[in-house]
């Protein structure tokens, strides 16, 4: 029996989608420069469903890829360049178990990040990783990408909050990996970008929800002053929950959009600082932050402990990518990292690269940990603009690595950055990574040609390039 017939026999109508309209909805994720129609979309409801799909793929030699909400920004959930089945996991969204004493929650992978914290809010606990996409992205996607977010400066990345997983590996074996259980195979899983198997259950660590939150918006005349304030704060030993900067162009785009947050439009940069924790901890650290702000005085300063005001201050930051839609039809969000002490200088060089390639470049970034998001706005219908944006992106990531940093702080390599892996890793490193993947996926069926260059072509991913459409965010 052929593959599709076997799938249709195993799953009831409506859970195997092969019509073109459905396929179009799954042809790319939040990185619209790579796109390809899937062979089929299957909607599993349980670990057993996933196991059966994967076994069928294995028997028929068909590639497969997991998809959560499709908000990934590096092409991770996009079908590859061979016929690929998409496992649409967004429907597996149960909170399976919540154990406040052990501070853990067991969830299905399709549960939306924010929904977990909302579901347990009465317990005084929360799930700390908070990608800006947290209203939409799934926890399975977060674990697969090892996602960060504004508050990972204090609380760490998703990997620091994963205690156990159920993973269906590429041969259809269901594996349970837990912290402290034999070798730390669990530690390999966050950031595997869906290339080891399909996550069907996650045991996540919870932290106490903050009793008090204090947020400042400091508007500076230029980027250098904002970066200096960040250095002083980090040097003081106080660990804010978040330290985020938006540059001049971003401020203007945000203020002209539905995400307007009241940021001063004459500022060269705004710095968002947030402290959270117990009442006492926030009060004692507030004194330190305020003395630093007195030494590095902003043009204007707003501070609040009010939830509504806080939401307003964050609205501009969280909506920044969306607001970029005003600048050009397409957006290429980069994700380079540099040592924090080099932020100021590297940002100047990045702007220079933008000027050289004549692309519109704005910056929104996690300043505390040096994770930059240079945003390149362009019109993908124009092949020249498109080529310039890609080349500027390549130069910026090469610069980040030259300065001792990384090509990706949180968005993953996906199909987007395969070519850039050689900036960071030698060929033997890549061979080891490939061999590690083969331990989980010997036939190379699970999200092939993602995260790690396969050596099939040094221009991997290029085959899937098609004209970009409107920036996804």
């Amino acid at each position: 029996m052929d593959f599709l017939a076997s799938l249709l026999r195993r799953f009831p109508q409506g859970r195997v989608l092969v019509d073109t309209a459905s396929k179009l909805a799954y042809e790319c994720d939040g990185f619209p420069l790579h796109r390809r129609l899937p062979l089929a979309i299957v909607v599993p409801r349980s670990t057993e469903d996933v196991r059966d799909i994967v076994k069928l793929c294995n028997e028929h030699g068909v590639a497969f890829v997991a998809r959560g909400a499709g908000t990934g920004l590096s092409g991770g959930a996009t079908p590859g360049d061979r016929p690929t089945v998409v496992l649409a996991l967004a429907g597996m969204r149960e909170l399976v178990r919540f154990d406040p004493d052990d501070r853990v929650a067991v969830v299905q992978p399709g549960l939306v990040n924010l929904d977990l914290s909302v579901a347990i809010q009465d317990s005084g606990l929360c799930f700390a990783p908070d990608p800006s996409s947290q209203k939409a992205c799934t926890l399975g996607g977060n674990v697969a990408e090892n996602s960060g977010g504004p508050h990972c400066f204090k609380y760490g990345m998703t990997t620091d909050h994963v205690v156990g997983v159920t993973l269906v590996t590429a041969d259809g074996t269901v594996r349970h990996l837990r912290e402290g259980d034999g070798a730390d195979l669990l530690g390999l899983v966050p950031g595997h970008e869906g290339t080891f198997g399909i996550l069907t259950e996650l045991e996540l660590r919870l932290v106490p929800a903050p009793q008090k939150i204090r947020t400042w918006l400091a508007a500076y005349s230029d980027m250098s002053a904002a970066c200096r304030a960040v250095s002083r704060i980090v040097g003081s030993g106080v660990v804010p929950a978040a330290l985020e900067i938006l540059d001049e162009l971003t401020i203007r785009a945000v203020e002209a959009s539905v995400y307007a947050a009241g940021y001063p439009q004459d500022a060269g940069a705004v710095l968002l600082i947030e402290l959270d924790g117990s009442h006492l901890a926030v009060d004692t650290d507030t004194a330190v932050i305020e003395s630093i702000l007195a030494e590095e005085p902003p043009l204007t300063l707003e501070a609040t402990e009010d939830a509504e005001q806080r939401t307003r201050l964050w609205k501009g930051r969280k909506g920044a990518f969306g607001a970029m839609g005003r600048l050009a039809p397409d957006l290429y969000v980069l994700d380079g990292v540099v040592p924090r002490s080099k932020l100021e200088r590297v940002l100047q060089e990045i702007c220079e690269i933008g000027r050289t390639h004549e692309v519109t470049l704005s910056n929104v970034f996690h300043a505390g940990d040096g994770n930059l998001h240079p945003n390149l706005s362009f019109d993908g219908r124009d092949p020249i603009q498109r080529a310039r944006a890609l080349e500027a992106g390549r130069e910026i990531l090469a610069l980040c690595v030259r300065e001792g940093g990384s090509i990706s702080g949180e968005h993953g390599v996906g199909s987007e950055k395969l070519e850039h892996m050689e900036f960071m890793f030698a060929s033997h490193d890549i061979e080891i990574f490939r061999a590690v993947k083969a331990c989980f996926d010997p036939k190379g069926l699970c999200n092939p040609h993602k995260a790690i260059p396969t050596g099939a072509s040094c221009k991997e991913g290029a085959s899937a390039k098609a004209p970009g459409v409107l920036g996804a965010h």
Partner: protein
Amino acid sequence: MHTDASERIVPLEPRDQVVVEDELELAEFLRDCDARKEACLPVGFASREGFGAPVDESVRRVSLRKLAGVSRFAPDDLTCGVRVGTRWSDLLATIEAEGLTLESGPIHAAAHRSVGGVFAEAPPNPRGHDRGALRSQIIGLRAMDGRGAEFRSGGRVVKNVAGYDLCKLFVGSGGAYFAALELELRLVALPRTIACVRSKPMPRNDASALWIELRRTLPDTRSIDLVLASDGSACVEFVVAGAPALVTARAKLDAFEVIAEGQAAWHRAPDSLDAAPLIMRGRMRPSRIDDFMKWMPLEARGRVHFQGAFALGIDGTVPPALEATVGFARVLRGPRGMLLTTLVDDAIETRLFRVFGTCFAPGRISFDTSTPPTPTRASNHG
């Protein structure tokens, strides 16, 4: 200077192992093992073996103690690079001189521990329950596989998701996969004020109830331990750090007293399990603490950390019922063959050994009661 009882442990004499002078010599040694199909085990100062861990005489040990020194230190970026043979205490002395430290570390911060050994062994550590667990502190790694070829994973910045995270595979591996050469670490500011606060001794059941209660209600702690004494009593101990006003307020709890302050509180390593014939470490779910205590022999001493990781010294044998209540444990020191199983039965684990060459000896000695193993290979140590 960080001292504690385990400094008394004498490391193995160099004649028991090959001490390589540099990385070239290590590469040659590994290629030789590979060619002869002999198993090898990287060690630092071999203090684990001095501590009583079983030794398999057929495994060639190679000490990396001379691959030492802090190779890169960027205080402004809160990162440093350190070679694996560096003494843990030397690393701490270097970074603490600049007002920085590691969020978590072993409670027995003995001089004879190498940095590589600490991460490879990943002993239970009290701090880092909400952030900064031991395994999160390695941000990059340079290592050598079993064919003597060098490779890297991670990088030098605190945030990085490019490439698979092989740093995690090193943490707790017991040296099973590859020989790490140099680690890149994430640092934190040494808190301005630190206090270690302890309750009075009390019956064990009262102490475990208090431990559960404080875990739920006491904010701003860096650790909360349940400490078991060999006389059958127990107490609760916690570390609080930060601004002086915060520390003073949190340290003021009825029937508790401050037993150490400043760096002494941060590095406090008060329990010695030295004399115990059986030393066991593992992890249990805190919600099962009552079962755990029910089966715990009265003379057992040691501590249970916030997340349920524990290290205990026991005079007799491990009661079978206790095994059933813990998720995972391994015996560090004990009569040979007792409860020692090498977990190489998992297909992926076995395949991973092969990725890095086959000469490294499986370093993990475990028993796992949550999913009973059916080993395909007999224990090395039985």
